[in-house]
Structures are given as C-alpha cells and as structure tokens.
C-alpha cells in the first residue's frame, strides 16, 4: 500500500471507524489493500469449494437408490452450484473477474476446502457429507453472516438458509440406513469413520498455526477462531451421533464437566498439509474434471455470445 496520497490517512481512519462500530464495508468504499486481498483469497476459496464440492456427490446422482434420493441429491448439487455463483459474484465486487477466478482455480493458484479431495466410496457418504461436512460448513458460515464485507455477508445469509436442508437430508439418509440391515449400519459407520477427521480439518489449522486469524478478526472478516468453531462443531455433533447410533472414531472424545465442553483428539495435521499441498486422494482428479468442464463448455459460451451479438436474441 502506498501512503503517499494525502487522502489515504483520512480514508483509512474512516475505514477503521466503520469496522469499529461493526458496520459493513461496501464494494465502492475505500479499503486497505490487505483487506481486499484477504477477502479475495477467502471468498474465492469458499466459492471454489462450493463448485468443486459438486463432484464428490455428483458422483452418485446416476446411482441413487431411489427416485426420491435422486431428486434430493440433484437439488442439493444444484444448490452447491448456486452457492458458488453467489460467492463468485461477491468476489467480483472486489475487482477480480469471473474468468480469472476460474483460471486461478484450475491453475492451482487459489485453493478450495481440503475435504473435497476425499473420495465418496458408498451412498452412505452422501449422507455423511450432508450431516458432517455440511454441518461443519454451517458452523463456519453462520458467524460469517456478520462478516464486515457486505456482499460476502449477504451471500452467506442466502447460503445458510439453504444449507440447513443439506444437513437434514444427510442426517435423515443416515438415520434411514441405521434402521436397515446390519450391512447398511456397517456402511454408515465405515463412512463416518472416514469423514470424521477430515470434517474436523475443515476449520483449518489450530489457532497457534493460523497466523492470519488475528488480522482477519481485527478486520471483522472472521468472527471466531478455528479452534472455537471446531469445539462448537464437536459439541453439536456428539448428541447427533448418539441419536443416530454411530460411534465417532476418537478414543479421546469425552465430556469435560469442568469446561462444559467435550475434550477430543487432534486430526492428523501432517495429512492435512499434504492434502492442502495437492497430494490428497482426489486433488488431481477434481481439478482435471473442473478443467475439462471449463474447456468443453467454451464453445457454448462462445455460441451464446455470438447469438447475443447477432441481434437475433429477444430483448
């Protein structure tokens, strides 16, 4: 940031005042370059997660066990596309174009949530993703409805309204399987065993290893630390797991009377770093698929543009 402009100091002060009174920053307001960059990184990562997140579940649409489940899954995957679009729109208000965002994703220059680099091996995974992954997402996203950047907060409000359907359909799917055969119950448990730790990783590294958190909280972009949100998620999920009749695969998980919260073990943070770096089970597949969709769809975008420019399209 260059501070040579005599007006910058005044603008910075006005910005700080808006943040201090928990008011919102809007797109055409002046903002520090670091604030803008942090927002672009965070919102774009969030948008990419929604778009890439369509893949693990989309994998099962053609193999849904009933028309009811298929309709639900289609609606859910369509929602994820919508969530990605809300968030891309919010990112664009910060001066980055849609095409740039897509290209930064497929070139690996922006990230998406590591959870989507794990495979979906059975239909129970559709339920587990709804229950645990969307449940963790809700924990993350509800406080972001009050984030300091207006367009991001408004996108989060829309998303949170729709996310509740996602979690409930997942829980109901698992509950239905738990009332089924021993084999179905085993499928659910196996799925929960695979997704529990990656779900805890969704909140990001422990606070001590999350250097950006302090600044993000000072700017009102983040409202809670990673560890706070992780704790909240565990406390919410334990009674749900009991209701389902599944075991969460953590030998250290137990109620701590003194703290009024659950103690629990730490995920394998080395694995997390490996997945973030691109070495998870499905990283290459996910990006290759997105790239293929982008490149194979180019002629459609071009044809629509040509048609619009031909003057034949209806106004």
């Amino acid at each position, binding site marked *: 940031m260059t501070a040579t402009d005599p007006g910058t100091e005044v603008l910075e002060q006005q910005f700080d005042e808006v943040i201090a009174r928990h008011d919102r920053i809007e797109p055409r307001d002046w903002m520090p370059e670091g604030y803008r*960059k942090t927002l672009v990184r965070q919102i774009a990562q969030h948008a990419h997660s929604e778009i890439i997140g369509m893949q693990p579940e989309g994998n099962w649409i053609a193999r849904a066990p009933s028309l009811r489940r298929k309709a639900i899954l289609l609606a859910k995957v369509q929602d994820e596309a919508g969530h990605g679009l809300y968030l891309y*729109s919010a990112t664009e208000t910060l001066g980055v174009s849609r*095409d740039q965002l897509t290209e930064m994703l497929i070139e690996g220059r922006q990230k998406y949530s590591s959870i989507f680099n794990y495979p979906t091996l059975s239909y129970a995974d559709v339920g587990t993703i709804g229950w645990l992954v969307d449940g963790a997402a809700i924990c993350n996203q509800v406080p972001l409805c009050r984030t300091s950047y207006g367009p991001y907060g408004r996108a989060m409000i829309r998303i949170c309204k729709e996310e509740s359907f996602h979690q409930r359909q997942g829980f109901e799917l698992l509950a239905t399987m738990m009332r089924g055969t021993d084999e179905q119950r085993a499928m659910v448990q196996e799925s929960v065993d695979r997704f529990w730790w990656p779900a805890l990783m969704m909140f990001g590294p422990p606070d001590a290893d999350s250097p950006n958190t302090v600044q993000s909280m000072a700017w009102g972009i983040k409202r809670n630390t990673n560890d706070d949100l992780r704790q909240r998620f565990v406390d919410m999920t334990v009674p749900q797991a009991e209701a389902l009749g599944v075991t969460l695969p953590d030998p250290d998980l137990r109620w701590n009377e003194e703290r009024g919260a659950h103690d629990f073990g730490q995920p394998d943070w080395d694995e997390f770093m490996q997945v973030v770096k691109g070495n998870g089970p499905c990283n290459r597949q996910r990006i290759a698929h997105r790239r293929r969709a982008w490149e194979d769809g*180019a002629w459609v975008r071009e044809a629509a*543009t040509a*048609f619009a420019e031909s003057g034949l*399209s209806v106004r």
Partner: protein
Amino acid sequence: MSHEHEAPIQRTESPDSAKKEWPLYEVFVRGKRGLNHVHVGSLHAADDATAMQNARDVYTRRNEGVSIWVVKAEDITASSPDEKDPLFAPAGDKVYRHPTFYSIPDDVPHM
C-alpha cells in the same frame, strides 16, 4: 472499479469471443405481491433472455419471488461513496421533515 486486478492472467490461445466475458447483470426480485423488487445479487449472461433464465435458476429455486428484474450492471447509475456527504447534505439539516420535530401534548390522541 478503481481496483487493480490482483493477478493478471496469462491467457491461453483461444478465439476472441472466448476471451470476452458475458456482461454482468444485477438481479432484483419481488418477494410477493405488494412488496418492492429488492436487489438479491448478480450474475453473468450472454443476453437479457438468458439473464432472466439464469436469475430464475440461481435466485428463485425455492419460490423466493413472483417477479424478477434483470438489469445490465453497466446501465446502473450509482452515487459515489466519495461524494456521499455533499450529495445527502441537503436532507441532513432539514429536521423539520421528520414528525418527531414537532412536539404535541401527550394527551392529544391519534397523532
């Protein structure tokens, strides 16, 4: 926008029309009869007809509205935040435009 792009992209070889992004549209939805259209977000589309189609799919998947407006963002004229104070100043010092400016005895009903 006055902001620099964060990271200029090195674009790969492709025809001109592929490089050009679809225009940005702002979307307004009337939630139900009797309410104003309210801005709900934005989207890209090649033309007005597809903008309307996309707006339906992106912003009204759950009966959120009974009517949609789509407007090209470039056609919107907006006040600038930099001139916020002078633009709204004429309203600022006219407190007599508000009902609370007038004191009415407490025992006068229906005022």
